[in-house]
Structure formats: C-alpha cells, structure tokens
C-alpha cells in the first residue's frame, strides 16, 4: 500500500521479482501474488479447455445467440480473448456502436461542463493507483482513456452525469476491451439497460436493491435477517460498495470478470446471487457478531480468502448455494422495496 517506495526503481538485488509481481491486467500484487499465481496455475487448465470450446462454438455460430448452450458456456466463463466480443454482442453495445458511428467522438469534441470535468478529474489518480497502466505517466496512458470515457458518458447521460464507482467500472472495461468507444457503449449498456438506476443522484435503484438483498437474506437465512434488523441502515453500510462497484475491489479480479460475464449475458440478477452466496456461506460468522463494528468486519472478511479467489468453484456455488431465485421474485421485491423507500421519503426525515 505504501507508495513512497513504489515509484522508485525495483530493489537492485531482485529486479526481476518485483516486475513479476504484476498481474496480466496491470495490477501490482505486492501482498497476494503467491495466492494469485497459486490459483491461476490450477485455473489455467480450465481456461485452456474453455478457450477451445469457445473457439469451436464461435466458429460454428459467429453470431452470439441467447440460448441455453451459450448461457451454460457463459456461466463457465468467457475466455479473456473473447470477452470484449461476447460482452459487446450480448449486451447490445455492439449494435449501438455500429448504429451510431462518430457519436462517441462528437461527445468528446463538444463543449464540456466544467464542474463535471473537475469531479471526474479529482478521481483520476484515485481510481487504480496500484495499476501500472493507469499511472499518469504510464504507457499507453489508460488514465486518459478513462477520463475520456467518463467525460463522454457524463454528457451522453446527463441525468446521471458522473457518480463515484463509475470510474472503477470504466477502468475495468478499458482494461478488457482496450478500446475507449467500446468501453463507452458497454458502460451505456450497463447503466442504461442492465442495471436499475444505481448511479442517478437519487440512487433509488441502488437503495432498492440493498433492501431487496435484505429481504432475500431474511427469507433464506432468517437468523441473519433478524440480526441485521437490529441495525438500521446496515445493508447500505455493508453492501452499497458491492453493488455500486459491481464487486470491483471487493472480490478478486478473475472472480469479478466471471461475474460480469453473466451480468452482460443474463442481467443484474447475478449480483444478488453473488451477495447471497457470500452471506449464506458465512452465516455462522455473521451470527457471532455482537456489535455494528463486528458485523462490518465480518462482511469485509467474507469477500476475501480462498472461497472467493477460486473463481471457478465460486461461480458454481453462486448457482447452487442460494437455491432458486426467480426474476419474478426479484421484480416483485424491487417493486415493494422501491415503494417503501418512496413512502418513507415522502413522509420526510
């Protein structure tokens, strides 16, 4: 975490070693490199197998369809070399990009709102300071791309503008697509279609989904629900970051990318599956909590460790451990929770 020494040249005696402690996405892993490489050395055979299957599938049907086979493929993970393509196709971003050529550029060329620009600028060096590609002096200068995507998006979707958290999302999109315009349209697919209104000034969709998760926990693990009910506003405290950042910085990067595979292909339900799995899997620990700080600590701890690092096993768990979870249930709960929040709001503080 310390930076004083970070910008300096690597230790002379082991120059090689320090350079190697960077993952393929550009993140420095000073503290968890061993566990990361340990996991990857096992995961690589899965990746290899999936990669061959995907290549064959895409050869047969280059157009990414929505059917059970592809859904199963997506849940087992999209290989990195196909990720941008699959995300673009599944989310409709590709269609948007093709139907509006030059639009992204025009957003960058227009006159910009100074306040929006300043706010985005403030978060530039605070987005991925531990990623070598996002250093301001870094080549090929992804910080510039990040700034452009957020600025363009803020002007494209003026009701949202810029909300903290979007910086992390745009950052991941740029890492995966290596393309500003594609990142922009994927961002639009997420905020405009896939997710409820998480990022608009009222953040109603986010506040709703936090409560929906609370309801789901109540029905699937009543004891945990009861414990959490003692602390007003607790769901916001422990899970708002999970939803806002779509698990970036909460879960390991490989796991996040696997979740996003499903997010782009299937929609926002997967976010609940992940949250529920984390909570249900750690209910014993949660139930031991005796105070608000205890609960917070517990929720922080449940996102790290071998359970979430082993992305392949984790992704299998999220589709089994929480049991059935229908979109109809979620829609009903969303409607109910949204109404409650709005009623509370109209009653005033």
């Amino acid at each position: 975490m310390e930076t004083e020494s970070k910008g300096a040249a690597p230790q002379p005696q082991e120059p090689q070693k320090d350079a190697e402690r960077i993952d393929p996405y550009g993140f420095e892993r000073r503290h968890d490199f061993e566990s990361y490489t340990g996991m990857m050395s096992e995961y690589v055979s899965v990746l290899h197998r999936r990669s061959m299957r995907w290549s064959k599938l895409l050869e047969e049907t280059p157009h990414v369809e929505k059917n059970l086979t592809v859904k199963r493929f997506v849940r087992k993970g999209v290989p990195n070399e196909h990720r941008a393509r699959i995300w673009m196709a599944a989310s409709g971003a590709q269609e948007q990009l093709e139907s509006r050529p030059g639009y992204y550029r025009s957003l960058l060329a227009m006159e910009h709102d100074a306040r929006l620009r300043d706010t985005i600028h403030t978060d530039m060096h605070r987005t991925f300071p531990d990623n070598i590609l996002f250093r301001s002096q870094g080549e090929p200068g992804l910080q510039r791309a990040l700034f452009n995507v957020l600025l363009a998006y803020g002007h494209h979707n003026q009701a949202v503008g810029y909300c903290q958290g979007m910086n992390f999302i745009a950052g991941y999109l740029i890492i995966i697509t290596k393309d500003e315009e594609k990142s922009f349209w994927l961002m639009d697919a997420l905020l405009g279609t896939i997710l409820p209104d998480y990022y608009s000034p009222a953040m109603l969709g986010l506040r709703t989904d936090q409560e929906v998760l609370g309801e789901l926990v109540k029905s699937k693990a009543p004891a945990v629900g009861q414990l959490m009910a003692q602390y007003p506003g607790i769901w916001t405290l422990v899970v708002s970051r999970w939803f806002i950042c779509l698990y970036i910085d909460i879960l390991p990067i490989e796991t996040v990318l696997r979740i996003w595979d499903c997010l782009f292909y299937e929609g926002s339900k997967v976010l609940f599956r992940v949250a529920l799995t984390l909570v249900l899997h750690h209910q014993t620990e949660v139930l031991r909590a005796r105070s608000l700080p205890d609960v917070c600590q517990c929720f922080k701890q449940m996102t790290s460790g071998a359970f979430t690092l082993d992305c392949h096993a984790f992704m299998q768990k999220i589709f089994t451990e929480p049991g059935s979870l229908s979109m109809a249930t979620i829609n009903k709960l969303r409607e109910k929770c949204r109404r409650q929040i709005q009623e509370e709001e109209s009653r005033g503080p």
Partner: protein
Amino acid sequence: MTNHPSHSNGMQSLRKEHLYKVLVIGDLGVGKTSIIRRYVHQTYSTNYRATIGVDFALKVLNWDSETVRLQLWDIAGQERFGNMTRVYYREAMGAVIVFDVTRPTTFEAVIKWKEDLDSKVMLANGQSIATVLLANKCDQGRELTNNGIKMDQFCKDHGFVGWFETSAKDNLNISEAANFLVKHIMATENDILKSVVPDTISPQIDSNRQMSCSGCFK
C-alpha cells in the same frame, strides 16, 4: 471486535468508558480517508482509492483515567451519497468537516456541509454537534488559511468550535484536532447530562450552557 466488556478487565473495571460517534465529511478528494488512516493506523499512502458509500474506523484513547472510544465515520464526498448516508448521522456527537487548501471550491462547500450536518443531526438539547474545521493538505499551500483572524471569524460565524491546518501526509495537527474535538464533545455531554437529569447535585444555574460550544475558542 474492540468492545470488551469493562468488567472483564480486572484492574480497569472502574474505568469510565465513553463511546462517541464522529462524522468525517467534506467534498470529494479533500483527504478524509487519509486523515482517518493517519489518525487510526499511523500510515499514509498516495494510493488510497476513492471512498464509495460509507466506511468506518475505531480509535481508542486513554483520556485521563477514562477510556474514549471514537467511532469515525468516513462518508463519501459526492453529494448524491448524502441521501443514502443520512441514517449514519443519527446519534453522532461530533463532526469533522475537511477541505483541501489547494482547491478553493472545497472551502466554499464547507458552509453547505455544515448546514447539511445541522439539518440532519442535533444534540438532545437542540444545539448542533461539536464540529471542527480542518484545512487539509497544508503541506501544499497556505494561501487559503494564512489569515488566521479571518478563519477564526469564519468559525465563529458558522458554528465551528475551532479550526486546524492539517496534513495527513506530514502528520500535522491530526491528533491535536481530534483531542480538541473530544474535549468539546465531553463538555457538551456533561452539559446534556446536567440538563437532562434534573435531580442531580449539580448547581441549578447553568446559564452558560448556551455558550459552551461556540463560546470557547482555542
């Protein structure tokens, strides 16, 4: 986690414990998280990521013969998080409003933050909670704060108990500011106890109570 019941501490069983909730607020990027990390963990890094939503940290102080547990609530600086974080203002006893001396707009926003704070939380006696103003990143410039008299007046006008030039980077004035705030919180707490419990042995005359908060400047 740190909430040991005091009776299990043997010798320390008679130590009086205080638990204070303190809000740390201010515009985005002014250094709220850095200040808290410096204060609680004695570390500083330029690598902190933007705070999303809310976070909190605990600091335990030995205060004369008593123990003070501070619950520091790190509230994200972006305006839209305000709706969501409102519930955490409840029962706060003190607050820290931070601005960045290198960015005048963050100082201009201080009044807005103070008004917002006062509208969301107040003490049992109707007064606003003790709030200090921190002029952070003072290692990078002093233009905004070089007129101390003006700053004193600003604090008086807007109901701050005092202000400090701080640097989380150089570890300047952070614990001083925190101690100053705790002192004020304890003073207001005493006032409230006196006013809420009428049949204590304390003298009836507490006409100075109104002045206890904004009256004593450093």
